[in-house]
């Protein structure tokens, strides 16, 4: 049963998954282009680290994009068929959603492995000055965790009914509007600020995205 669900999901997303895997493999290689001694034979390390850091911003974006696209291809066909087929299958609904989620995670492993391989190749291919080290596996693990969180979030949103999605967006919209009014009335009560902050601080879901996405660092 799981194999068939995985097969259908793979068939729906294989093209875009290939593109994502290529991007995931290429990203680490691109990020280490700047790691070269300058004309004086010296390593301008601040410059290199800054370069790697700017490249590093693409990892979370790629993880989120991969997760979003996978979640959409997971639920796309079911949405179009108004879930009749899924409902007529003889397994409880939570079981079906669980299998879909599992299949998505398995497919998500492809870009993660691609990033890992890209990072391994990149770190093997560059001569590092003393003091700097490459962290391919940690980068891949961080990428995997970020992708997992993003996939779970998008999976839940696209599995939810338009009603729940509407409610969630309504709440967020309401908060922003209230925040605007508060700003206009120049009281310095800040509703959205701390809430947003909590998202990115430790127990928050998006904390994994805020780490240092650096293939090479001190």
């Amino acid at each position: 049963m799981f194999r068939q669900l995985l097969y259908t999901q793979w068939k729906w997303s294989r093209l875009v998954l290939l593109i994502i895997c290529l991007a995931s493999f290429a990203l680490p290689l691109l990020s280490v282009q700047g790691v070269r001694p300058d004309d004086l034979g010296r390593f301008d390390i601040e410059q290199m680290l800054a370069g790697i850091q700017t490249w590093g911003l693409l990892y979370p974006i790629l993880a989120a994009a991969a997760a979003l696209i996978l979640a959409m291809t997971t639920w796309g066909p079911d949405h179009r068929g108004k879930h009749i087929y899924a409902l007529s299958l003889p397994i409880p609904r939570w079981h079906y959603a669980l299998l879909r989620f599992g299949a998505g995670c398995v497919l998500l492993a492809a870009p993660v492995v691609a990033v890992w391989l890209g990072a391994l190749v990149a770190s093997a291919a560059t001569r590092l000055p003393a003091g700097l080290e490459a962290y391919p596996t940690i980068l891949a693990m961080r990428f995997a965790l970020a992708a997992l969180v993003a996939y779970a979030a998008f999976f839940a949103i696209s599995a939810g009914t338009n009603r729940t999605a509407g409610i969630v967006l309504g709440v967020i919209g309401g908060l922003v509007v209230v925040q605007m009014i508060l700003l206009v009335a120049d009281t310095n009560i800040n509703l959205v600020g701390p809430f947003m902050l909590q998202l990115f601080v430790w127990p928050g879901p998006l904390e994994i995205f805020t780490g240092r996405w650096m293939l090479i660092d001190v």
Partner: protein
Amino acid sequence: MSRRLLCTALWLAACAAPAAAQTRAELSQRIARLTTAFARAETARLRADSAARARVTFDTIRAGPMRVLAARSIVRAVAPAVDSAWRALEATFGLSARIVGQETIAVQFWGQAEGNIPFDSPNTINLPAAPPTELVTRYVIQQGSRIVRQTEDTQLTSWLSPQFAPGGPALDRLDVVYVELATSPRSKARSCFVGDLVACRAALGLAGREDPVRAWYDAADRRAIVRRFGRLGGDVGRCQRDGPDEACEAALRLIPPEQLPRPLSPAAQLSLLQIVLDAGGPGAYDRLRSSAAAKHSIEERLALTARVASGDSLLSAWRAKVHAARPHTVEVSAGSAWAAVLWGVVLGFLALRSTRWR
């Protein structure tokens, strides 16, 4: 303090002028005339202040030998800060902390009832209205340690960074020092990082009388520093245009030695000092000050204070400690990893419960 800044500004202005037209003698004549004029203005100001001060009431807060003047309305706020400041000074400087009693410190808050009091004390701290106690403490400590360190011997003072004060910045941040060592473009810092103790000695400025332009940098460093100057003629221009190393050296000599950028930041020196004081235990700073008479090099004095056999073992101990403090910048902490997995499961579970299925 301000006099010193004035001199350096004049020096820089002088060097910037075309070197062929001005000899060194003319330059020093002009500076002497300016400083005498400045001194005459200073004495006039002091006489005016003392007349105004007589009319205003203020108190003296005492903590150990320390005497702090403050207007009556702010005494209640300043007193606790003075106590904790004195405790910090005593903890770091040991007996030498008593020197702080030689001068009075004045504290004023912005907008205090008595208005601005022209204290005659050279250590006047002007703070914003109702500052937090830690802020008052920090400023009082800084003034206190400045008084104590005024009487340090020139060898120690020239080596020790002016920022050194109890509870000062980056005293125990070895990881920051590690990052600096690992990523510094200066060759001496890099070879120190790799393990060359001689480079560490030069980078930390412990090499005694040597000529900094040659000792602190190699050719590439010198060129890199000069390149950061503006577009100038003479030696600077030639060095910038990949001229011989001598041009870069000449360019650097134009800058007074104490203004030259050290291979390692004060944070590195402070971390070394911290290790010395910790190793030396109570009264370490006193021993450091008293060892001035024995004509040792600064390195030997530090080793003596830290009760360590030789400078090299001190440096290698320091280097080992820095390496041990390597920050795990990139690692995914177990906490955030588990949080991510947990969020994955929770959000996934949300999808399972979704009411989409009606």
